[in-house]
């Protein structure tokens, strides 16, 4: 079989003959139907929110649909009983007014938000430790493979370009092209690996046998290299990651071709697959495609989690200090949402550099509110997708810890206090859902500093069953000296 160009992959052949390998590839990997795995999904936004109108309108305690009506979170109203809204979480170690050094706050926060590790230096600001998704994936993915990292929109090639890290200074670059992301884990490949024996008599296809022969050789070479006496710990760790990756390739290879028959719920429709495959790879980062690509990446993310292709996934929406122009939210050509990008609006300004409002207050605050609601609608789209897959324990949503995060709270002040965090799904009963919870001891959620964000990361990691090397639960995620050990018990059942 010849390699096929991407665009023609489906179109040129069409029909069930092509659809079938998809279905096989997407078959659930787990053998036992009674053990639904726990998963972690991070939905990450930037530039803060309109803090005045974002939060539930009712006091701390039970969260109902009414609590959310008229707020930035209104699109989530139908999920109120499956949400946990947490107040008072702030970055470790800093918050507005507590950081004497200047610097791009978006850059400082992005490298820190999911790692709870200090920036490596004051210039590039890459994080000095691994992020939650990579730590958790190494623990809960059966093969130890890395998480599925996705991103919508323009990606800067600096610290703003990813929230995820495999280790100190090692930023994990996310997929931006939904077709590329889909191909990477779905087993769809433009290569010839799908060829089968002419007599059809073998269970394992030729491609899998060939790959095994090749990878056996590769693995022994990697082992030999790793055992070289001249290599230090960091170099050995690099090769360990490579070896883990090869083993995870082998795991997916063994499943391929001998997987049980697929269920209909575990595949994209042929029409949707065709749409995603037809996307122009050069256009995926454009503002004009932000909605379309966002929806496709949500499909890919939900499918990967539901079909147990990966138990950890992140989706980053744009970069701090940038973000798209939400022109589709603008009522007219004069609407500020039609003219200015998210970051400018977060500062009420017409320039990314000017950081105090120059636009009419009601206009930019309304624009931000509309953007918040749009993101919440998208967040609901993720919950809808996960809720649509039934499995033991309810739905995939019920077995997943889904968390909305943002690099800032109040975007105008670049505030790292009282960050918006919404947990949904519950991770199979770990979280106390249907609640609006304050995590600081005092009432000043915007000023109190006793609820550092690393505790949320510790809580999320344990919620989905991540373990330390010795098999015990995590106790203090991250390496920032001002982080605090322990979980937020207020969030737990």
């Amino acid at each position: 079989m010849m390699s096929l160009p991407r665009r023609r992959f489906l179109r040129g052949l069409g029909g069930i003959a092509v659809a079938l390998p998809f279905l096989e590839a997407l078959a659930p990997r787990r053998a036992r139907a009674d053990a639904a795995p726990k998963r972690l999904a991070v939905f990450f936004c930037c530039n803060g929110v309109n803090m005045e109108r974002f939060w539930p309108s009712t006091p701390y305690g039970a969260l109902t649909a009414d609590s959310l009506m008229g707020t930035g979170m209104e699109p989530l109203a139908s999920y109120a009983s499956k949400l946990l809204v947490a107040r008072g979480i702030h970055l470790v170690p800093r918050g507005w007014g507590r950081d004497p050094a200047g610097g791009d706050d978006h850059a400082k926060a992005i490298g820190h938000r999911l790692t709870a590790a200090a920036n490596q230096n004051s210039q590039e600001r890459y994080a000095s430790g691994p992020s939650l998704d990579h730590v958790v994936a190494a623990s809960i993915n059966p093969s130890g493979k890395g998480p599925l990292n996705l991103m919508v929109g323009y990606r800067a090639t600096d610290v703003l370009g990813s929230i995820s890290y495999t280790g100190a200074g090692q930023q994990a670059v996310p997929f931006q092209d939904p077709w590329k992301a889909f191909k990477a884990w779905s087993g769809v490949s433009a290569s010839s690996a799908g060829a089968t024996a002419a007599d059809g008599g073998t269970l394992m296809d030729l491609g899998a046998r060939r790959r095994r022969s090749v990878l056996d050789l590769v693995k022994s070479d990697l082992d030999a290299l790793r055992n070289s006496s001249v290599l230090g710990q960091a170099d050995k760790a690099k090769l360990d990651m490579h070896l883990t990756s090869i083993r995870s390739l082998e795991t997916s290879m063994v499943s391929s071709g001998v997987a049980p028959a697929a269920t209909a719920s575990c595949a994209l429709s042929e029409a949707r697959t065709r749409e995603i495959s037809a996307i122009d790879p050069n256009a995926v980062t454009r503002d004009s495609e932000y909605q379309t690509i966002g929806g496709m990446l949500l499909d890919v993310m939900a499918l990967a989690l539901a079909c147990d292709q990966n138990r950890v996934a992140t989706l980053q929406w744009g970069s701090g200090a940038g973000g798209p122009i939400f022109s589709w939210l603008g009522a007219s050509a004069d609407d500020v949402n039609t003219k200015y990008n998210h970051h400018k609006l977060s500062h009420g300004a017409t320039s990314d550099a000017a950081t105090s409002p120059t636009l009419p207050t009601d206009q930019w605050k309304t624009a931000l509110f509309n953007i918040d609601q749009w993101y919440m609608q998208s967040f609901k789209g993720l919950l809808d997708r996960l809720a649509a897959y039934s499995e033991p324990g309810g739905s995939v949503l019920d077995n997943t810890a889904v968390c909305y995060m943002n690099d800032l709270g109040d975007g105008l002040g670049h505030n790292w206090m009282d960050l918006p965090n919404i947990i949904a799904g519950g991770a199979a009963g770990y979280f106390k859902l249907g609640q609006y919870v304050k995590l600081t001891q005092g009432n000043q959620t915007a000023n109190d500093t006793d609820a550092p964000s690393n505790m949320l990361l510790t809580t999320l990691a344990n919620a989905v069953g991540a373990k330390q090397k010795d098999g015990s639960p995590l106790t203090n995620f991250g390496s920032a000296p001002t982080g605090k050990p322990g979980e937020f018990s207020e969030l737990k059942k």
Partner: protein
Amino acid sequence: MSKNYLEWQGRVLHGTRAGLAVLASCAWLAGCSGEIVAASSMRAGPPPSAEPPAAGSGAANTPEELGAYERCTALPVPAVTRIARLTHRQYQNSLRDLTGLDLPVIAEFLPDPHQAGFDRGIDLQVGDVLAADYRDMAERAASALVSDSAAYARVLGCSPDQGDACAKTFIASVGKRALRQPLTAAEQTRYLELFHSGAELFDSGDDFQRGVRITVEALLQSPKFLYRAELTPGAALSPYETAARLSYLLVNSTPDAALMAAADMAQLASEDDVAQQAARLLSGAAARETVRDFHHQWLDLDVFPNKLTKDPQRYPNVTPALAPLLQQEVERFVDAISFDRKRGFVSLLTAPLGFVNKTTAAIYGVRGTFGDGLQQVELDPSQRAGLLTQIGFLASRAYSQGSSPIHRGVFIQRRMLCNMIPDPPANVPALPPVDGTTIKTTRQQVDQHTAPAACASCHHALINPVGFGLENYDAVGAYRTSENGVAIDATGTLAGTAAGTAFSSGVELSRALADAPEARACYATSWFRYVLGRVEQAADVCAISAIAARLDDDSYTPVALLTDLARSPSFRARSGESP
């Protein structure tokens, strides 16, 4: 260390001691207070020290008469990774050179994070996504190779009719090129076994083609192909390791036949051997690509598309769609200076050489008839001088309606002087409007805006005095002599340098930069980071200083610079340690 290198050091250092006070490396201006600290003493790695190096560290004592500066040559070459993964471009070029096939590796693979400011870091990893991409690309390349009869015959170099004899020849020759060293007997045996197994593992092609396919699939996933491994114990590199450094670091691909032949004969041990091969590699077209790519990244040309949104009423012809042309202009300029004119750093910053089309000729004020493509012209030397007066740079560091001395000043301080300036704090008030009455000029606007003490420590000390030098260029880089009826004041000083040279125009600013030891040090440092793929450490300062000291000579081309870099211990040796 060879006597030769020290002589070379002594030669290039002649008369430049003063400049070395700034240590030719990036300087950190602590809190913009003007206190200059050598960055190399702040970063990882030991500070320069007079203590003798540990035995076997690969460094030698230096003659006393060379003085304090030479202490750094007594430091061991820093411990950096012994397994540098190929960048995607290096992988793509290697695949092309090995098979003769152009496959879109860079387009297919997820991009890598930048390290040390460039996309050529040596500390890249292989995660599961890339492992799968490597596998898929290896399968695709192997399939394409046996389907292309010309490429197939060329790569084989023997007739399949010879059976195993040809299989062995193929494995030995392609294996050696792919893995950049001769295969061991054990490897030869294992690959031959794999070759034979191929017959049962494909359903198309003849048995020999199947053997070739599976062998190529394995070679392209071998760690010896994917990593530039340096496993020779101690500080010295083996001839094959040196060959790989030369080829990948200078021209971004796998060693060619001549380089492998030199390695076979162990002719890459001496400094002169290495310099000779470097000069040979850099005599071809690949050197132009290296010089282009470095300047493209150093000057951050990739930001152009995102920074060219202008007021359509005032500047209807400048839009993001102009970005590719403006990038090409810079690249053509660099190429012409470096290769056609065989000039160096001074000309890059001072030559009034332009490449314009009908749109940009109007902005430059060049008369004549021009088409859509770029055409070489001489620009008015009283208005234009090299890189900093090109409209791509000027327009991408400007607002939609006005210039931005702050963005321009910050770029020059960070990129061209390697001064670290912290980002501004949050909640800076908006720039007051240039209303034509109370504030008539951008200069007044910026002065007023940055007057508070908290701003002034960076802005008045470093950013504004430099950025004001380009006030003769408006939001799209067109030359102007007045703003709102007020004559342009483009006076300033080269703040952040020891001399602090005064100037009164962009042309003079460019000249002052070309003459500044700090700017030369920064250019040399940037090249070092690009080529070596890492941030410099204390012991690397020797290599950087030696190059910086030659940049005042305008006949010192980037090719000569690269050849000198290849001579340095930082390039030719390594620490005995591995991180």
